[in-house]
């Protein structure tokens, strides 16, 4: 049976008929531009509770600061600019919150969480959660933990002068496992905090982030790797800033690698196909779902080390 375009349009329109226009929107916009009124943010949109442990900043650093973006694929070829990212959105702005105390609640709950616990913060309008993360205090501890994920690309050697600074490993739950509620409490006005555990037999590693510093040159090198869904049509291009160059290079053990350079930052993006995709159970507030991962994506960034130096970190 074929659904005609008009039928699909009508079905969508009926289904979303409950969305209401704002009758005063035009007035507010005009008044705002005249400086007569401050544009309001609607309550639900400013209930911001999520916490990401270092990965967003690493991503933002890797992405470069300011500048209009271009896009390259895994072969280093420039592709039509499908993601119009304006300078205002290259750096993720600090999240706005309705109240500083809610933000504080989130941080406190994360600090109280046991390693690998999933912490979920829920309000009336949204649900946010922190990843199941375990901090590592040394490369030795990191290496031991990563033995449970033998396929994950790992740094083979660390450049001279750089020392381990901090690290974390993000855990998921293998398909077949489950998230068990271990604790739930009210932590504020209409805010609930819930903790979930996973049987360690179903623990799997989704990704990691490592930071190394060279105090002499005041540089940080950040290495992060993460599994990516098999059917990930959103992530097959890499954004580069206008002042950056991109080149496809070959690194042993990787399927694709892109070196990105500018005067201020050097980046390496690598992709490795997972021979046997890994299925995990992803936590959802109303319903968990299965995600299948088919690739590892790894990023290394440094302000000082060249992309050749960065490549040698992962070379055999």
């Amino acid at each position: 049976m074929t659904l005609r375009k008009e039928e699909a349009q009508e079905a969508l329109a009926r289904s979303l008929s409950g969305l209401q226009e704002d009758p005063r929107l035009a007035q507010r916009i005009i008044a705002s531009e005249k400086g007569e009124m401050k544009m309001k943010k609607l309550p639900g949109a400013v209930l911001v509770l999520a916490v990401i442990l270092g990965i967003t900043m690493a991503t933002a650093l890797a992405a470069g600061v300011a500048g209009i973006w271009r896009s390259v694929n895994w072969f280093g070829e420039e592709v039509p600019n499908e993601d119009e990212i304006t300078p205002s959105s290259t750096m993720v702005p600090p999240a706005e919150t309705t109240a500083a105390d809610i933000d504080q609640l989130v941080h406190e709950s994360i600090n109280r969480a046991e390693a690998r616990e999933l912490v979920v913060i829920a309000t009336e309008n949204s649900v946010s959660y922190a990843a199941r993360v375990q901090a590592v205090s040394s490369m030795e501890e990191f290496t031991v933990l990563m033995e449970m994920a033998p396929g994950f690309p790992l740094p083979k050697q660390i450049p001279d002068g750089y020392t381990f600074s901090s690290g974390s490993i993000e855990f998921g739950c293998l398909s077949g496992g489950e998230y068990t509620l271990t604790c739930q409490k009210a932590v504020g006005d209409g805010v609930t905090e819930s903790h979930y555990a996973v049987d360690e037999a179903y623990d799997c590693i989704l990704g990691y982030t490592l930071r190394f510093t060279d105090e002499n040159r005041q540089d940080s090198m950040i290495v992060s790797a993460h599994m990516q869904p098999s059917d990930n049509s959103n992530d097959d291009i890499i954004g580069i800033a206008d002042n950056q160059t991109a080149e496809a290079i070959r690194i042993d053990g990787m399927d694709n690698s892109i070196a990105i350079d500018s005067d201020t930052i050097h980046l390496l993006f690598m992709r490795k196909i997972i021979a046997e995709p890994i299925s995990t159970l992803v936590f959802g507030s109303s319903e968990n779902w299965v995600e299948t991962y088919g690739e590892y994506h790894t990023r290394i960034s440094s302000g000082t080390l060249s992309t050749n130096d960065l490549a040698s970190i992962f070379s055999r």
Partner: protein
Amino acid sequence: MQTVKGPDRTPEEEITRMVNEHQLALLRLCFTYLHDQDLAQDAVQETFLKAYRSLQAFRHDAHEKTWLSRIAINCCRDLSKSSWFKHTDRTVTPDMLPEPAVQTSQEDNTLTVEIMRLPKRLREAILLYYFENMTTPEIAETLRITQQAVSDRLVRARAKLRKALGKDFEGDE
């Protein structure tokens, strides 16, 4: 026959007209993109603000709906890049849909939910094609991609929807 040009509108009249004509369609587009009514309203507000600021620069060489849709899509993309958005549960279920104002069927809601579940790029193409009733060249202009890329995305999106719904979707690109 001689074409008579109508009286020029002030910017205030122009933006008011645009809001009256396009607000609902953009609200539905943004909701289906962002899965959240409040965020969708934010995105629509931001869209018209940007449009108002750029009225002088809008040379009307693009269709007005195409222009507004492009701004709206970019606003949605900006919002969806925030760390809060990424770490807020976005599981799409029928109970996320707003209470309908007219009679709907389970089929209507299932279609909407499955469109909302599509990967972002496929969702954009499908929404502009079905919701905004744009042609392939208009979608290409809105998303600033090639027409071939639009066709590819529509084909992939329809394949996913066919698998989820057991129905083929008509296409004329």
